[in-house]
């Protein structure tokens, strides 16, 4: 068999590959459509992120305000508690005061037994 001597010059840059018509413009259009879509997705993701951030900050602020209000209300109530009770007790008629004291004494007895 005759030995071949391959020479690149004979074939050059020939390739056996074919392409459909307008394949490049198709690639360009599809790639651009994906870029636009991903860009919009990224935009809406950013917007969603901003909204979630604002909501989180608002929730934290509301929690702080609520805690602060509860703390204030609680401590204030503690301060006035005994005065209020005393005031209420003194405003009762003598018979009611005796009745309450009797119940109180009775409760204490029950507790100590």
């Amino acid at each position, binding site marked *: 068999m005759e*030995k*071949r*001597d*391959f020479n*690149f010059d*004979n*074939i050059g*840059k*020939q*390739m*056996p*590959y*074919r*392409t*459909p018509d307008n*394949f*490049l413009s*198709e*690639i*360009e259009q*599809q*790639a*651009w459509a*994906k*870029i636009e879509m*991903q860009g919009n997705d990224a935009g809406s993701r950013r917007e969603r992120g901003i909204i979630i951030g604002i909501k989180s900050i608002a929730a934290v602020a509301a929690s702080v305000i609520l805690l602060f209000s509860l703390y204030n209300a609680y401590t204030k109530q503690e301060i006035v508690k005994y005065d209020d009770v005393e005031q209420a007790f003194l405003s009762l008629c003598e018979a009611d005061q005796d009745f309450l004291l009797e119940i109180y004494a009775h409760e204490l007895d029950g507790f100590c037994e």
Partner: protein
Amino acid sequence: MDAKDIINGIKADRERGFKMLMAKYGEPVYWHIRRLVVAHADAQDATQETFIRAFKGIGNIKDGGKLTAWLYCIATNEALRVVEKRKTEMGNGNEACAFDMMADSYVDYDNMEAVKLQRAILSLPRKQQVTFNLRYYDEMDYAAIAEVTETTPSGAKANYHTAKEKIIKYMNEND
């Protein structure tokens, strides 16, 4: 139109800049990918992904002169990713997989010498394959090839000559 014009074009008008990028590099990048993946549909997908990734990252390029090598680097990675995917799907060895891909409907079997040359190229190790294609078909200089293939210019030159010798041997031995 050079790389700087494209980068500035994208900054000024995204869509117009993208069209400029495609106009300059669309066809050579497609063919670079096609030579590696063989099937047109795979080449089409990998080319799309290449330009999407390139468009997203182009703002980070400081030196416009590096655009070509950078783009070919992305294209090569995309093409090799597709080849690996096909290889896994087919469960074949490297060479057998390449030959299976030659069954694509967009391969012209009338030119058997050209088919054989592509088979010879596809039988090479990946780095030699990429190096040979970039030098032989794209006429890229060794410095740029070295950037794409992550080697030195002398390493790229050695790879090219080794690839060329192997192809000649393949062409002479396989009739």
